[in-house]
């Protein structure tokens, strides 16, 4: 056992920073078979399996790792998919360091097993060497009919899980393509869209029907869905409403919300303009305001679009940045600069209404606030001007109000989030369930998936009880 602990964690190969900062191809290249087996062999197969309870969807982690160690890569992929329908995505964008890997027994005395990298390896191996659709059970739809609204991580998972339980699921998406934030938010270089497509194909092969370009609440109402014969409805409409900075100059030309900037580039493929029709404009010097993954994605995207200098402006210090450490490091390696403990005060305009600079104030950390982080406080008289022509605001999003406000009587929280029964996922309206960012506010892909899965089981119980089937 001790010899296993001393084995170093296998690094995943990546594109070199100077190369990758000029292209939109995936940064992390994935394990080879040899690296995967070597990493799998580091797992000590401890009896307590803390990693499983650290996973919001309860993947049988030691089992799939054991299958990798034995060289049964396809078997390992199938093992993961018993619990997680979207392994290629989770392996890439889950914050394993705060979940399964955070509680790994090896982590107590050294580095934890690279569970995320191994999960990704299995999914990629199956895609290249196996038939990822072969184990999909096509639902016969006999259990009932469910409408799932929103095809992001919560909706996709809920739909997949309900299909496994024998439901006829119709998945409604207001955009012209599936995936929600996986499609419009997370860039190609971190999550190739071909992978989103393939995982959506898997869910379709389970019998889930996808209807694009339907804004539930406008194109069809929730009442009409019930009238059409749906037994239950799941709301997974996410946290798509961007905050702005609330400072003078935020409507100048050259100021984007991260949502606009990333949607143009990712969903609309503006990085391939003019071959694709949607434009995006990025100047020479870009400031990205915020410290989360979306800020890192925006900064690295701006760099790839040709910005000469990209600076992340964040009001606390590096230690408080909510972005994954891996993404902060990737950004640093690519040459993104960080202006920490600074906050924008106003954006300056040229005489034609375009950004010509951003005035910031230095911050220092004061007392702890309700989030347990030290509150940043402006240092009087420390204002300075950042010489930028583009500002991207990545300071967070709120739950999307568009659908929920069309449902009379639906209980909402202070920030427009939908209130649910923690156990069943049901809202105060019978038959209407919700999960993911629309409930929690902006969180992670895997948390939304966990909520989608839990709601699927809540929906199953609800419909079974109503139909008088055994519980």
């Amino acid at each position, binding site marked *: 056992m001790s010899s296993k602990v001393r084995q170093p964690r296998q690094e995943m190969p990546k594109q070199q920073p100077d190369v990758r900062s000029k292209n939109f191809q995936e940064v992390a290249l994935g394990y080879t078979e040899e690296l995967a087996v070597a990493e799998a062999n580091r797992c000590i197969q401890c009896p307590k399996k803390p990693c499983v309870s650290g996973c919001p969807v309860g993947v049988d982690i030691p089992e799939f790792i054991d299958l990798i160690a034995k060289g049964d890569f396809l078997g390992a992929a199938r093992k993961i998919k018993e619990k997680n329908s979207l392994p290629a995505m989770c392996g890439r964008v889950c914050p394993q360091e705060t979940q399964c890997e955070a509680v790994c027994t090896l982590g107590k005395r050294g580095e934890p097993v690279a569970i995320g990298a191994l999960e990704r390896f299995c999914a990629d191996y199956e895609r290249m060497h196996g038939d990822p659709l072969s184990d999909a059970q096509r639902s016969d739809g006999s259990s009932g009919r469910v409408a799932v609204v929103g095809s992001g991580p919560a909706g996709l998972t809920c739909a997949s899980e309900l299909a496994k339980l024998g439901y006829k699921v119709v998945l409604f998406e207001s955009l012209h393509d599936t995936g929600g934030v996986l499609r*419009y938010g997370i860039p190609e270089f971190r999550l190739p869209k071909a992978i989103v497509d393939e995982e959506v194909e898997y869910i379709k092969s389970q019998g889930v029907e996808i209807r694009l370009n339907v804004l539930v609440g406008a194109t069809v109402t929730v009442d009409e869905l019930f009238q059409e014969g749906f037994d239950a409805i799941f709301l997974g409409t996410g946290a798509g409403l961007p905050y702005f900075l609330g400072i003078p100059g935020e409507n100048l030309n*050259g100021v984007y919300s991260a949502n606009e900037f990333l949607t143009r580039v990712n969903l609309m493929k503006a990085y391939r303009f003019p071959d694709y029709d949607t*434009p995006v404009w990025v100047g020479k010097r870009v400031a990205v305001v915020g410290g989360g993954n979306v800020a890192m994605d925006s900064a690295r995207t701006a760099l790839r679009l040709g910005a000469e200098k990209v600076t992340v402006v964040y009001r606390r210090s590096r230690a408080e940045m909510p972005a994954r450490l891996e993404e902060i490091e990737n950004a640093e390696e690519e040459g993104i600069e960080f202006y920490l403990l600074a906050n924008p005060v106003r954006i300056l305009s040229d005489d034609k209404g375009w950004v010509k600079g951003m005035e910031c104030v230095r911050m220092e950390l004061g007392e702890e606030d309700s989030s347990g982080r030290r509150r940043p406080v402006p240092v009087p008289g420390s204002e300075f001007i950042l010489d930028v022509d583009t500002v991207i605001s990545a300071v967070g999003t709120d739950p999307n109000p*568009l659908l929920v406000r069309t449902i009379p009587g639906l209980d909402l929280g202070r920030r427009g989030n939908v209130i649910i029964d923690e156990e069943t996922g049901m809202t105060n309206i019978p038959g209407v369930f919700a999960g993911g960012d629309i409930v929690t506010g902006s969180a992670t892909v895997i948390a939304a998936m966990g909520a989608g899965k839990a709601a699927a089981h809540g929906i199953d119980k609800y419909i079974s009880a109503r139909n008088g089937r055994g519980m």
Partner: protein
Amino acid sequence: MYRILKKEMLAPKIKLIQVYAPEICTHARPGQFVILRMHEKGERIPLTIADSDRDTGLLTLVFQEVGKSTTELGMLSEGDSILDIVGPLGTARDIEKLDCVVCVAGGVGVAPMYPEAKAYHLLGTRVISLIGAQTKDMLIFKDRMEKVSDEVYYSTDDGSFGHKGFVTEILCKLLEDGLRPDEVIAIGPLPMMRAAARVTERFGVKTVVSLNAIMVDGTGMCGSCRVTVDGEVKFSCVEGPAFDGHKVDFDELIARQNRFLAEEKLALERYLAGVGGCKCHQK
């Protein structure tokens, strides 16, 4: 896929298309819009609904060819298909019976004005329509607007039809002569809507404008279409497109409409070089 069932040339560069979109038609109300995307590489193009028929499911859209995407849309013929249409989007106008409304419409803005004028007309409201265009050939929806209006006044920039000058000059004259409508609705180019709002403000007449800000998703997700109204930032895709014309910061919005001018020019030139230009006027 939405097959184009009917196409009409209303004026040079202004075209009408009709598609079968029953779900949208069932729910559409005056003032709402749709977003369409022609093909895999296409932009999401917001277009205000010019008419929607619940019984037949026929959705009517009118657009002016300005950039690459609208020019390409104008090249489609009956029988061709549009890949995606989503809607109805935006907040519908609450239309109730009033004594009198004045509809000020400019250019292609007459098309989105039509459902509002019609709705008022059907409620028995006296509708006075002021329709402006660059020149006589560019006047559209003349018959339709006349059918739902009690009075119609025309203006053209060159004097080829009706009053020579701006449509807002007619508005000013009517108000000076003592007309006090319950509401003025202005739909058209931003400078026209700004001018209309300035005129009515002097007379304290409520004025609603319909903004055509640049959008991406059209569902409140990106904030591209944000506009300052009464000092507050609003998303015109969700909270609009109709706003109190006296409170809109038009200067800011006009500047924002130029955000992608260089890219739009490049895309159009590249497209026209590729297809050899639009051929429909050569017939």
